[in-house]
């Protein structure tokens, strides 16, 4: 019955067309496609074609398994969703029925046809063509075994905010080594800058610093602060990571963290990072008293000795002789099996929102500045005061969604600003008794105990005005506006324009990806969305994995989120890594290239093409060989070999050429050829 297909010409192929409810069947006539495949593709080896409501359901899978056993199928084509979703499902079904899993091919008629086309007839015809391509291709599939690679038990966690801290502790507590890399002098991240955390209003430092201490003292955690990852090589289970440990100019083995150097350093510097520009630090500093590790760093740019060649006050006064001006950056190389990226977020530069006057009007503050103002350990010891440092505000305006949900800045919702703004309102009411106005577009208080907090803030007496603020100005027009900041807003509930004079404005600025998120993503071989957040493997079902095996993401690096979700993601990423480590090895797609030495002419064209150094040339025999452990399976050498000596599994020349032929079979048949076109 079979005319010609695959190596043997004897393949018996089953075709299974999924309705996916109405997802596919709504646009594609799936019954007709199955009937057509049974009738018109039988010369191509198709012995059975069926349609079913949900092929991925257990009944759907059983249908395939039954046919494999009863009809002796040697190949399976499933026309359903993207292989990135269900390829594994159907491969495992084939395996259960005794068929090698790699003899199954998934044809995406949902993502590539029913969901993107509206013309039902054309979508149905396209589905037939895609299935024909799959049938022609699958005949050339070969039984394969997955590649098993060992998993190195150590993990690299990048970023020492709460996400990275949580992930590192989970893995270290399970008994496995962790390298935690942080580019600032201390771990703690943004959370260490906050005063209170919503909705329970517990103090951020009280809940965070014990965790930081655990990280600092954990026998399984190697903490590398003031350090950055400069290079990542290898693949899941076997990464080689290069870390640049910047010179601290402090001998860590001698420093006791007594703080005398910081006290005696004559050079005061505005602290733009931790204090958000509101406070000072010295040229030798730890960002905050509870910093982990306790060792300070000397800021070369501002140190009088480094800039002018004299001073060395810290060196003279250090009781343990721990200052070392001769220190240089160190490059460390570590081997790890998995990587968790917890690189966090930046806040939107409020200067970009010109109409809100930040940077021009003194008493417009950002949310991060307000966090430092209200923090008992901050520059004002927790006094909420105006920029002059003494005056308490009588009225405060808090603007939600500053730079979020705004096509001029970021389209997305920054997720935390509603609750953060309500928290600010509560703190202002509690500490100063000032009148508080919150300006919001919508109130989004969706997590546990959040809406209750919103109700509490309303009861505190905060005044909520629904409307996007048009402008913050100091140009007084009406009595009572002199010397005030005036907030111009359309109150959309009252249906009128309002001008509200206040003493202080707080902008709840949106969260943005780190300024260097793209570079970092590239270094780790993963991708960012158009907004710049790291793309997760699946937005619902695999939120902490990335497209790159062995690289996970946690916290705000993946998108804006609050502390509970960040901690949950940190723990989730750790759980995924731990599962990997426990398995000791991982099965990888056996997509690899190999050389048929008898065909290799030794031309060496392929030799320069491999970025993984997997191609070795044997001078003695004048042939090339590919190291399967290093080969990543891109197939560039396969495409380049002029002798056809290199073949690639899963994407062989035969498979691709047969698929092209199949995809165009209808066109070839339709063509009024002067001579028959062989297909």
């Amino acid at each position, binding site marked *: 019955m079979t005319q010609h297909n695959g190596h043997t010409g004897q393949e018996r192929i089953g075709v299974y067309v999924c309705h996916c409810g109405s997802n596919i069947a709504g646009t594609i006539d799936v019954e007709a496609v199955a009937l057509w495949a049974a009738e018109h593709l039988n010369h191509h080896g198709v012995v059975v074609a069926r349609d079913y409501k949900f092929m991925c359901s257990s009944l759907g899978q059983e249908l395939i398994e039954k046919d494999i056993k009863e009809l002796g199928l040697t190949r399976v084509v499933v026309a359903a969703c993207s292989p990135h979703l269900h390829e594994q499902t159907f491969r495992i079904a084939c395996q259960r029925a005794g068929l090698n899993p790699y003899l199954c091919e998934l044809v995406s008629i949902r993502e590539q046809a029913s969901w993107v086309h509206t013309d039902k007839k054309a979508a149905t015809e396209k589905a037939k063509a895609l299935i024909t391509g799959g049938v022609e291709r699958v005949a050339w599939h070969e039984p394969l075994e997955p590649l098993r690679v060992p998993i190195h038990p150590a993990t690299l966690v990048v970023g020492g905010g709460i996400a990275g801290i949580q992930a590192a502790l989970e893995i270290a507590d399970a008994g496995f080594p962790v390298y935690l890399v942080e580019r600032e002098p201390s771990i703690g991240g943004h959370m260490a800058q906050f005063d209170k955390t919503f909705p329970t209003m517990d103090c951020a430092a009280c809940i965070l610093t014990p965790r930081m201490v655990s990280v600092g003292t954990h026998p399984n955690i190697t903490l590398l602060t003031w350090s950055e990852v400069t290079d990542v090589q290898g693949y899941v289970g076997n990464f080689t990571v290069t870390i640049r440990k910047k010179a601290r100019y402090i001998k860590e083995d001698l420093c006791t963290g007594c703080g005398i150097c910081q006290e005696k350093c004559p050079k005061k510097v505005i602290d733009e990072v931790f204090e958000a520009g509101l406070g000072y630090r010295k040229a030798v500093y730890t960002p905050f008293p509870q910093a982990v590790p306790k060792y300070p760093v000397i800021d070369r740019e501002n140190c009088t000795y480094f800039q002018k060649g004299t001073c060395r006050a810290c060196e003279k006064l250090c009781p343990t002789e721990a200052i070392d001006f001769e220190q240089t950056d160190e490059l460390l190389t570590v081997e790890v099996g998995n990587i968790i990226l917890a690189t966090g977020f930046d806040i939107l530069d409020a200067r970009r929102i010109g109409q809100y006057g930040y940077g021009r009007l003194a008493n417009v503050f950002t949310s991060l500045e307000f966090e430092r103002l209200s923090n008992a350990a901050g520059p004002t010891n927790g006094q909420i005061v105006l920029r002059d440092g003494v005056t308490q505000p009588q009225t405060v305006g808090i603007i939600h969604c500053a730079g979020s949900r705004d096509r001029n800045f970021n389209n997305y919702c920054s997720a935390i600003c509603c609750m953060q703004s309500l928290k600010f309102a509560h703190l202002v009411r509690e500490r100063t008794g000032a009148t508080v106005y919150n300006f919001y577009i919508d109130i989004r208080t969706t997590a546990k105990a959040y809406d209750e907090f919103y109700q509490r803030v309303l009861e505190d007496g905060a005044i909520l005005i629904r409307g996007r603020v048009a402008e913050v100005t100091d140009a007084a027009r009406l009595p009572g506006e002199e010397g005030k900041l005036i907030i111009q807003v359309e109150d959309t509930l009252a249906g009128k324009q309002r001008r509200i004079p206040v003493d202080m404005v707080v902008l709840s600025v949106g969260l943005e990806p780190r300024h260097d998120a793209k570079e970092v993503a590239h270094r780790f071989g993963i991708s960012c969305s158009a907004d710049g957040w790291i793309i997760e493997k699946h937005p619902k079902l695999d939120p902490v994995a990335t*497209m790159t095996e062995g690289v996970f993401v946690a916290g705000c690096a993946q998108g804006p989120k609050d502390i509970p979700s960040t901690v949950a993601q940190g723990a989730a990423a750790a759980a995924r890594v731990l599962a990997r480590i426990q398995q000791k090895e991982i099965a990888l797609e056996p997509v690899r290239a190999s050389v048929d030495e008898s065909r290799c002419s030794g031309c060496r064209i392929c030799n320069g093409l491999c*970025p*993984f150094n997997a191609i070795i040339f044997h001078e003695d025999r004048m042939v090339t060989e590919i190291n399967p452990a290093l080969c990543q399976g*891109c*197939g560039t050498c396969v495409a380049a070999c002029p002798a*056809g000596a290199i073949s690639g599994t899963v*994407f062989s020349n035969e498979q*691709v050429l047969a698929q092209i032929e199949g995809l165009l079979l209808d066109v*070839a048949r339709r063509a009024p050829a002067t*001579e028959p076109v062989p297909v």
Partner: protein
Amino acid sequence: MSDSFEPVLIGFTCNWCSYRAADLAGTARVKYPPNIRLLRLMCSGRLDPTFVLKALASGADGVLITGCHPGECHYLEQNYKALRRYLLLRRMLAQMGIEPERVKLVWASAAEGVKLAQEITDMVEEIRALGPLNWPQRHNGAALHADEKAVKEGTA
């Protein structure tokens, strides 16, 4: 060329970027014309120019090659090799009397479902304007099939 000419395109996609962009276009229900049929490779670097010729010879009116943006290749730099081959291939097509515009290379990251859909839409219209290629009719099929046989057997 009749008004009812519906071009058929073959699109080569990279497993890591453009194939996922196509998935994303689907999930987001972004619409594009049904004239393209996509095929997955692991990398644009896997694209043997023979695949493009094979598609044209088998009746495709145009071929869209897609890959990761420069600097974002999953395999570090193989998309540059795809770019090199593409530029050579276009010169070769011109020498063969085929409009080089029938083959196009575009970059599309995994996040660019909308962009990919737009590129497909644009290219379908460009090929529609060029008219059918009709390679199987224009050329003697025998020579091509001999070439293809050579590729399959690795004696090219």
